[in-house]
């Protein structure tokens, strides 16, 4: 099939890489794409839980590279979409259990069968990061509207460029328009200007994401179409080459009214 491998990375931990990987992967499968998610965070397996697939794991990526099983045996089918599967990280091993070359090989084999291979990158810029980006054709940077997260994102962009992944796009996660409007959070234009890269999307800070993660159901499955679900849908369509304008994340009229009256 010859799909492409996209690494989802950030430098800083806890900014939403795993959440984004789960949602973008599920969204692409909703569009009928063949998708494989790789959890490259070896030793800190997460993506299985966010996807609600933790009880189905038999083999993991280390079993694959050590040839304890075939690649197909380690792939876990998603509950909801048959064209979506997960290659889990090993939980009891460390980053050195998989080499760069092995990662490149795994990605190559998965790309032959899928439209998209999404790689959930560990935090940091050490070997785990180096491995995760080794097999990627493209990169998505996740950041939050904070100085430390953007600084790390900038560092990672530089390192990606050095590895030939020169044109990453950024997702700004956990934005709060109420704070932006009060001048207490950097706005989107500021951040894009400073990072000097293309914007793939903006995801609001949304407690529904915490709830959906509790259930093991990515928010993009949400029918009520919360703002964060819509944001991830837009991102998926942009990845597919559609031109979708940024959605309005302005606070609603009532919220603004309440805030001005000091009730919000």
């Amino acid at each position, binding site marked *: 099939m010859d799909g492409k491998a996209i690494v989802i990375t950030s430098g800083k931990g806890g900014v939403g890489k795993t959440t984004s990987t789960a949602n973008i992967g599920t969204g692409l499968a909703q569009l009928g794409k063949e998708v494989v998610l790789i959890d490259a965070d070896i030793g800190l397996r997460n993506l299985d839980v966010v996807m609600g697939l933790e009880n189905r794991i038999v083999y993991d990526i280390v079993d694959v590279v050590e040839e304890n099983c075939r690649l197909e045996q380690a792939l876990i089918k998603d509950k909801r979409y048959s064209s979506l599967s997960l290659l889990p990280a090993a939980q009891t091993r460390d980053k050195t259990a998989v080499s760069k070359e092995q990662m490149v090989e795994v990605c190559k084999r998965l790309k032959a069968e899928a439209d998209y291979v999404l790689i959930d990158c560990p935090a940091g810029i050490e070997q785990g990061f180096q491995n995760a980006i080794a097999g990627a054709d493209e990169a998505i940077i996740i950041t939050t509207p*904070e*100085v430390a997260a*953007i*600084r790390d994102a*900038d*560092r990672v962009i*530089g390192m990606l460029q050095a590895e030939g992944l020169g044109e990453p796009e950024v997702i700004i996660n956990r934005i709060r328009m109420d704070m*932006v*409007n*009060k*001048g*207490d*959070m*950097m*706005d989107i234009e*500021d951040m894009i200007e*400073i990072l*000097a890269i293309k914007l793939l999307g903006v995801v609001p800070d949304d407690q529904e994401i915490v709830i959906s993660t509790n259930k093991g159901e990515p928010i993009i499955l949400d029918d009520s179409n919360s703002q964060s679900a819509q944001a991830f849908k837009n991102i998926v369509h942009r990845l597919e080459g559609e031109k979708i304008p940024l959605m309005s994340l302005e606070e609603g009229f009532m919220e603004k009214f309440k805030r*001005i009256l000091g009730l919000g």
Partner: protein
Amino acid sequence: MLDKLRKMFDDEVDSKDLAKERLKLVLIHDKINISPELLEEMKEELLEVVSKYIEVEANRLSIDLNQDDQSIALVANIPVKELRRRSLEDVSESD
């Protein structure tokens, strides 16, 4: 609107502007990898060289790192007192 009014009455700086300025500085220093001390040293040396040719206001000299798009520029602002017309000979003599 009300927010803007509120801002006019307290001269507190928006924390987002603080964040932006701090971020810009930290990124420039990350990239150029030069400490403020080294920058100060460079300033002294620069002053020495320039003073050989023109009289400058040493205490008003400033050196900054500026970033636009992807390139970083070293910008020195050196206010001149008055032009000293010296021949090249003078310069080598004074060395």
